[in-house]
């Protein structure tokens, strides 16, 4: 039984392929239909000694006796047609999976594949037209014997898939075409429609993702230290400008001898006011950082760092820096304001990336580590293989408006330290033995259960 052996082989194929077609429900249904038809046919063959029953849904004579040669031949023909259909649908699946997402190649290869599955492949050709594009198999030519199925994309008619016979063939259900071929062509059209939908969606998604990433980077920049730093710099700049200008004007007036003591005293008073104002800005900033205590909840630092990585990795890639995370699993949670701690980590990573600027020799990497320290603390470190910091900088690095960067403002680390200190932690750095710098910060976790609760 040649047909049966082929069927078994193809059924096995179906099982193997079922994995990658499981997400295409309509397609799966189409394949399922064909499989069921095939299994019906097999069943009927195996039960060849018994009666053909109506439940197979395939018995168009209803009362035909089995074992007749005609019946067997007819079933054999049906079977081989089912197999051709299956081959065709699997073929398309294969094309789609191996297309690398190119719609053009999918449509072109499908046009080449289709004629083989029709009853008279030697005179068959195919054409797929979608929107303004047309894909034809190599022997395509217009012909009056055509079977056509519409391709709809998101419910709208987007094009057609056609199989044509270049020569006349015996009349069947639909011109020279069989009803099974109509079903197959409809299934192919539906499949192509879904493929177009999926690929265009993926294309849009890819575009969207890129834009989203840009926006995220931007957002991260403006919402963290950068924005704060610029605003603070601008705000502090005003009183500083006024102080400088008052003092200069005062000096000129005294030198010119055009002023009274009272006027000088008055200007000195204004200078003091402005100095107070600059101080007030710094105080407000500290308040801002320390006021957030209420939003502190138990946080998993690893999870916070993984979030930050998503943002920082974009920066790292842009600067050709490898960002590595070495996270100790199952860290104890710490009470923390997640956003503030993320700002600290992000700031440290950005500094580390900046430190690699102009360093051409590998490794160009930044390593973020977490570990548990004795004394009930979680430690986070950010290590770079960058240019390092001059010895004499020391702790001045954490002073506001101290910076070693050409375009830095010098508030990132001072704010970071204020945040960590407000969390009862510590922030410091050390010079690496080989090269670069490592910044550390610790946050305490609470191990003892609070028995004092009323």
């Amino acid at each position, binding site marked *: 039984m040649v047909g049966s052996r082929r069927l078994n082989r193809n059924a096995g194929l179906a099982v193997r392929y079922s994995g990658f077609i499981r997400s295409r429900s309509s397609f799966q249904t189409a394949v399922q239909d064909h499989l069921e038809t095939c299994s019906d046919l097999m069943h009927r063959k195996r039960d060849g000694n018994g009666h053909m029953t109506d439940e197979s849904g395939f018995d168009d004579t209803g009362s035909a006796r089995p074992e007749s040669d005609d019946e067997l031949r007819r079933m054999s023909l049906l079977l081989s047609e089912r197999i051709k259909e299956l081959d065709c649908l699997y073929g398309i699946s294969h094309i789609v999976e191996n297309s690398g997402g190119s719609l053009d190649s999918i449509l072109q290869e499908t046009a080449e594949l289709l004629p083989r599955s029709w009853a008279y492949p030697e005179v068959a050709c195919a054409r797929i037209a979608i929107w303004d594009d047309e894909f034809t198999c190599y022997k395509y030519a217009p012909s009056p014997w055509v079977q056509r199925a519409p391709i709809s994309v998101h419910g709208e008619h987007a094009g057609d898939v056609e199989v044509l016979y270049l020569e006349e063939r015996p009349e069947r259900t639909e011109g020279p075409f069989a009803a099974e071929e109509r079903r197959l062509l409809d299934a192919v059209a539906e499949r192509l429609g879904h493929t177009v939908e999926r690929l265009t969606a993926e294309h849009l998604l890819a575009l969207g993702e890129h834009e989203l990433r840009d926006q995220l980077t931007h957002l991260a920049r403006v919402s963290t230290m950068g924005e704060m730093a610029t605003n603070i710099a601008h705000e502090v700049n005003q009183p500083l400008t006024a102080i400088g200008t008052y003092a*200069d004007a005062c000096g000129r007036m005294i030198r010119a001898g055009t002023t009274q003591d009272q006027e000088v005293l008055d200007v000195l008073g204004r200078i003091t006011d402005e100095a107070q104002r600059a101080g007030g800005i710094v105080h407000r900033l500290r308040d801002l950082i320390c006021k957030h205590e209420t939003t502190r909840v138990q946080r998993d630092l690893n999870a916070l760092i993984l979030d930050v990585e998503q943002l920082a990795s974009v920066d790292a890639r842009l600067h050709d820096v490898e960002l590595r995370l070495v996270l100790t699993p199952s860290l104890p949670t710490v009470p923390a304001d997640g956003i503030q701690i993320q700002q600290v980590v992000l700031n440290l990573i950005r500094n580390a990336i900046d430190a690699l600027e102009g360093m051409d020799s590998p490794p160009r990497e930044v390593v973020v580590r977490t570990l548990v320290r004795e004394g009930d603390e979680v430690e986070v470190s950010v290590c770079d293989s960058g240019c390092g910091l001059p010895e004499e900088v020391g702790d001045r690095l954490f002073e506001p408006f101290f910076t070693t960067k050409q375009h830095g403002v010098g508030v990132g680390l001072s704010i970071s330290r204020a945040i960590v200190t407000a969390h009862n932690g510590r922030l410091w750095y050390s010079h690496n033995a080989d090269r670069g710098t490592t910044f550390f910060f610790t946050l305490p976790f609470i191990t003892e259960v609070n028995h004092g609760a009323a």
Partner: protein
Amino acid sequence: MVQHESAVFVVDDDPAVRDSLALLLRSVGLKGEVFSSAPEFLDAYDPTRPGCLVLDVRMPGMSGLELQQRLDNLHSTLPIIFLTAHGDVPMAVAAVKAGAADFIQKPFRDQDLLDKIQHAIAQDGRIREKLADRQNILSRIESLTPREQEVMEMVVDGKANKVIAIDLGLSQRTVEIHRARVMQKMGADSVSQLVQMVMRVQE
């Protein structure tokens, strides 16, 4: 025409910066006028008043760059010195590209700002002189009759009276009379002076 004294117009939203700048200007004998916002300055803006504008680039509401644009739309030639902050380099670049005379970063050394102000006031004086001269020449040209204007163009083109006479179908004597009238009305002593005047308005 009333000759105004050059003034330094200061627009900054920060009262202390305004006040200290006013004091600095006074200490060197410059006339300063301060405004707390761009619209306040626009309301008081008088194109005939010479001087320069010291303008903060960052202000709530209308920014310095927007004010620059507005003044540009009004065909103002008042030189602008922008006050920028440390991180405002791109803004400063945009301002200079849009025709700002100069910019200075806050906080600044008083002498640097005063030098820029003097420079801008001198620039404004030159621009105004040039504009006045141009206006003067244009009004003289307007006083010519169409025929005289025609003759003047041909004289400026270097054509001899004989050629002009043929071109315009006039007698050489008539051309000579027109030409004398042109020189008189334009206040030109020589043809080369006339050519220079026409070139100055064509710039």
